[in-house]
């Protein structure tokens, strides 16, 4: 980070480095979001990965990135009092976020696989999701309020002071191979080209064949429903066009013919399997009423 001082515009370089940190953080947040969903279903894999991700955030973002921003906030508050309250809020959010990340890392490391599969796992996943939501909102707020104004609010001397007092490391995420030495699970997961969201759920309670039949039935009767709507619209148009008794008789005749055609199509167009499935459903639902009643004593 201190290398920024060698650039012709040290403020811009410093701010670019902070933005790159946000880029890395966004990538990790997306991975945390993926793993939080898997926590109760694949705890032996997702649990350690999430704990590793929290440790990474604590060891880089909370330990170095946020103190950098806090130093900037302090300087900007001196120069631009209008931002005082907002920047104080952002600094507070850093503390709250760090404390929660620490608690989450400890709880994830301490939880057993059995605990993660149950209610504790669900609660932990909710807390992880809340941490992700909070961190995203915090980043958005920083970018909209503080990043946009930092460069114009500070002068060359401010930047010399800020850069001179910064001896922290670069984000290790810049080199995924290097990252793999300290955070192997996180690094390998970040390198995956395909992510599945929600696919850990058991497939529908219906069998594949039943599901396809259900969908086909929905298509079939959905189509007939559309036809019925078109028919109704056509009937109405015919009636509205009636001018005199002769036209009324003719319209009623046309409407009757169209309705009978549609009724015929309803009876004839469904394939045998649809009729069988539909009939079976009707018989099953009517059965209690059709069975002979037992005589009462």
């Amino acid at each position, binding site marked *: 980070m201190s290398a920024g001082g060698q650039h012709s515009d040290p403020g811009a370089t410093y701010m670019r480095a902070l933005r790159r940190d946000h880029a890395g953080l966004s990538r990790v947040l997306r991975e945390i979001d993926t793993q939080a969903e898997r926590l109760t279903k694949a705890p032996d894999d997702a649990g350690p990965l999430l704990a590793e991700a929290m440790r990474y955030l604590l060891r880089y973002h909370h330990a170095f990135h946020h103190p950098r921003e806090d130093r900037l906030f302090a300087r900007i508050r001196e120069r631009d009092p209008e931002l005082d309250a907002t920047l104080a809020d952002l600094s507070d959010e850093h503390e709250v976020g760090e404390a929660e990340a620490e608690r989450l890392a400890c709880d994830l490391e301490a939880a057993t696989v059995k605990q993660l599969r149950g209610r504790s796992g669900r609660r932990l996943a909710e807390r992880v999701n809340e941490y992700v939501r909070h961190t995203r909102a915090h980043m958005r707020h920083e970018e909209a309020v503080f990043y946009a104004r930092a460069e114009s609010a500070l002068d060359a001397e401010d930047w010399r002071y800020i850069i001179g007092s910064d001896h922290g490391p670069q984000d290790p995420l810049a080199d995924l191979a290097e990252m793999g030495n300290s955070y192997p699970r996180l690094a390998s997961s970040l390198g995956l080209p*395909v992510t599945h*969201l929600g696919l850990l759920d058991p497939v529908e309670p219906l069998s594949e064949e039943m599901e396809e039949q259900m969908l086909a039935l929905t298509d079939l009767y959905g189509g007939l429903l559309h036809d019925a709507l078109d028919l109704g619209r056509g009937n109405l148009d015919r009636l509205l066009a009636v001018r005199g008794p002769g036209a009324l008789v003719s319209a009623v005749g046309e409407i009757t013919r169209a309705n009978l055609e549609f009724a015929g199509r309803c009876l004839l167009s469904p394939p045998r399997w649809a009729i069988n499935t539909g009939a079976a459903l009707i018989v099953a639902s009517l059965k209690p009423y059709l069975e002979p009643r037992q005589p009462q004593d």
Partner: protein
Amino acid sequence: MVSWQTRTANLLGRLTIRQSLRRDFSVAEMRERIRTMERFFPDLPADIRIDREPGLSHCDAEWLIPTTGPTERVILHFPGGAFLTRFVRAERLLMARLCRSANARGRLVFYRLAPEHPYPAGLDDCMEAYRQLLDLNVAPDNIIVSGMSAGGCLALALLLAVRDEGLPLPAGAVLMSPAADLTEHSEAGSRLANAPHDAVLSLERGDDIRRLYLGDQLDRVNHPYVSPVLGDYAGLPPLFFQVGSKEILLDDSQRCAERARSAGVRAEVEVWDRVPHGWQTLSFAPESGRAIDRLADFIREVCP
């Protein structure tokens, strides 16, 4: 677990849009039906302002500007609609939510539609919009190209065209279920396997869409600007795909991403379980909010 809101959307999509696509209808009828459906989409949130200046030569375009604070990032978005129509309100709302989440300005391009304006009119409009951003001194590494469905096809085609013309490339692209293969050979893989499951799209209209989009240039269907799945992705910026596991367009995303990776381009695919085509626009569904947050994460990552 797929939310009840998304399950409901799947059923409604199957009973409305999918039915409309399967029936014999005119383009005018389809546009009218979509205008009717659009009434159900909410208005823009109050913290997003629309600005229609400057315009483009042949089509409308809008700026969507968050009022929360200044930002350099610009998302250049091309809406979907099978090249024939579009969901204006739905795409505007999608962009508003994405802009808010990614802290970016949105540039929504209502490119010319077929059959009145067949290929390459739509792509020309997209190119003009990109050139205009450069002329407005938007740094290319602050631009994210985005597209939904047919708009995803145009977004990919735009990237290939920008590279081929030697223009500076954007920082990255987000592709939401792009329709990247218009060839007749596309009717295999997920197009067939997912045909009964897709809650919105139907295979039946493939020939019509191809014919209407290309007009008398059907022989260009294998051109990468028409079917970007056949393109050479070397030199392109990072790509991020989102697609549903039961969409007929699933393979389009996966094939494009594989092709990009084989050319050394970073390309990620997110496969979402049983969501309908265009679920990102369904602001009432939790999967939509989550998808938008993840798109914003990617945007912030490649466009810091």
